[in-house]
């Protein structure tokens, strides 16, 4: 396999072709904030928090790219922190804070970039529409029990075609990947219900482990099921 040499924050690194800038930066121990990225999932690039500056070869001007989706290129010079990057990230966090003023995670990240309040009229969402739950349910669980509906401002996470698909196995994976704790599982009359943000739909028997999720010891917190 071909390897690619590049510079991140003035440090040289050589990585296999196809590596993203984010992955390469992490190998160097450089932290780039992310919201919609997950190592187990395909690149998506929607929250834009992970923007970094890249400059190729002889080009004088640099451009901002999402590091989680941008594949490394030979001779690339990457800067992961600069006034411009901080300003754009702060601008994005002002928007997210206005969308989800109640989210602890967003408030904390915003604080890191000096954003403690938002100049816009706050709304009361928790979900930032990062799509992690939708993608994990599709790519990893294979249940495709939730999907995006509508577009633009109306974009929302719902069961596909707005009808409970009956394919949710109440595995809770969506709740563990959600960066803002917006998606929850809940037991109603001993049946676990996946709250795909704004729709509630009953779970079914898990086809992998065969356990019926309605069994009495159904834990309140699915985090307990995952290795620490």
């Amino acid at each position: 396999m071909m390897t690619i040499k590049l510079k991140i924050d003035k440090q040289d690194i050589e990585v296999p072709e196809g590596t993203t800038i984010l992955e390469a930066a992490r190998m160097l121990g450089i932290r780039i904030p992310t919201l919609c990225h997950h190592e187990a999932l395909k690149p998506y690039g929607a929250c834009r928090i992970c923007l970094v500056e890249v400059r190729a070869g002889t080009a004088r001007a640099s451009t901002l790219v999402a590091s989680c989706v941008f594949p490394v290129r030979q001779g690339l010079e990457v800067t992961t922190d600069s006034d411009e990057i901080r300003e754009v990230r702060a601008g994005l966090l002002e928007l997210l804070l206005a969308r989800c003023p109640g989210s602890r995670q967003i408030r904390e990240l915003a604080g890191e970039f000096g954003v403690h309040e938002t100049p816009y009229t706050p709304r009361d969402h928790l979900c930032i529409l990062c799509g992690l739950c939708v993608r994990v349910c599709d790519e990893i669980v294979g249940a495709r029990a939730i999907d995006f509906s509508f577009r633009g401002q109306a974009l929302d996470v719902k069961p596909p075609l707005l009808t409970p698909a009956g394919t949710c196995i109440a595995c809770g994976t969506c709740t563990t990947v959600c960066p803002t704790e917006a998606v929850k599982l809940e037991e109603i009359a001993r049946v676990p219900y996946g709250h795909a943000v704004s729709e509630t739909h009953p779970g079914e028997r898990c086809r992998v482990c065969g356990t019926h999720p309605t069994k009495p010891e159904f834990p309140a917190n699915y985090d307990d099921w995952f290795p620490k």
Partner: protein
Amino acid sequence: MKTCRTHLLLCAGTGCVSNGAFEVMRSLEEEIKRHNLTEEVSIVATGCNGFCERGPTMVVQPDGIFYQRLTVDKVPHLVEEHFLKGRPVKELMYTEAKGRPPVPRMNDIEFFRHQVLIALRNRGRIDPEKIDEYIANDGYAGLARILKEMSPEEVISQIKKSGLRGRGGAGFPTGMKWEFARRSAADLKYIVCNADEGDPGAFMDRSILEADPHSVLEGMLIGAYAIGASRGFIYIREEYPLAVERIKRAIRAAEEYGLLGERIFGAAFDFSLRVVRGAGAFVCGEETALMASIEGKMGRPRPRPPFPAESGLWGCPTNINNVETWSNVPVIILRGADWYSSIGTPSSKGTKVFSVVGKVENTGLVEVPMGITLRKIIFDIGGGIPGGKRFKAVQTGGPSGGCIPENKLDLEVDYEQLAEAGAIMGSGGLIVMDEDTCMVDLARYFLAFLEDESCGKCVPCREGLQRMHEILDDITEGRGTMDHLVLLERLANTVKKASLCALGSTAPNPVLTTLRYFRDEYESHINEGRCPAGVCKALIRFSIDPEACTGCTACRKVCPTDCIAGERKQPHKIDPDRCIKCGACHEVCKFNAVRKT
């Protein structure tokens, strides 16, 4: 084609058809029959010839007489006078202004005189539904030449040398794009024609597909040969039924002639084409969203790289070009790269089709060489601003383009010059505005369109456009502060820099350019609570000047909320609390007594 004395080239583009072109055609046929002229006069239904404002239009060949605003009742007189007695009818000719002499010949009309037709070379000249007419006008000769004489690499080097750049918006060099696709090794490659044309007011692609569908097919065939693609799609807007029908008919005809299919012209070159109808969203015109849509997925953009040339439709190398780009290709092959690159500016070669709309005398479709000034397009070809009003600005590049003010009208139109002015070439929409346009309201209008069309995937575009809209609402409704302006500019830059696709990254252009060129208007709204153009309802007030009012009661009668009071022959008064600012009183008053402030 039979040999007739006279050919009537009647425009059957969407504009003329909606103004009754087919009725006129039927009536022409009847009258010609009645006078026993069928052997001498033939009628050809052509595609749009661009002067939609004056439709239905017709050109009489060989003498080139141009008739406009034809109606069924004028046909008998026309046929008798011109085609029987040989006396062209002055009343149906074009005049530049009332009282000016008519201009009989098409090529002498200002609207047509400055145009250079390459992409639209066959418009108004051939019957788009007949492949033979296309072939008779050098059609498919470019394809024949490359298949006989040129290697794919030579084709690409010709296109590169010609300087052709994509006409769909970004202006990426076409030859370079083809080269990337050529170099991607794969068994299966695709070619796509982007005919989504979602910009409101733009209709050049529709017009090309309607007037000359084979030019697009031939361009795609040449491109397919060059990059080594064997399958193609034409992604066309659902709202273009006539264009869909014509392109499908053209594909069938090309298949019958062996121009599509296997071993085209006996060469080792197979290519087949399918038409896909768009789902109606503006964002589906963006190439990655378009490909998702063809694959049957939700039409949402994805990050690039990988570019379509590396991984496009179903993971195969794919080359996407715009309709107008494709239709330029055959002529370049036939007439040579040097000829093509002799037209235009150093960075932008050839011509560009613009749809000129808004407050301009001659609205329509024009093809002009790159480097022409905006002034020439608007004032010479477009005939200037109607009603003696003053020009204020022109928005180039559709809703996500920029507003260019009067002092930049001498700018020579090309990709770089427009970008320098903060605007874009986009697909070639030109919206002309006069003094009655409020630039803040205008920015809000375009923003609202893009906010509606945002796919919602990425944060800056979904959340940012919404907030920019809110700020503009505040300013136009009288709640604006100078802090708003600072925030607006900062937010516009965040959206521009951070958005995933070009919908988001170009959406702030109208705001940024109006802030750059018309900042005083924003400041009037904020500091003086005044809308200088008298557009923003919250900031205007209607009142009646008691001195001028004659008490004629006209205003009282038209007011929809009955908020005007007053006795006959006594000065009237408006109740400002109930006034909804519709302006009806202002329009109806003959004594100029209703004041708008």
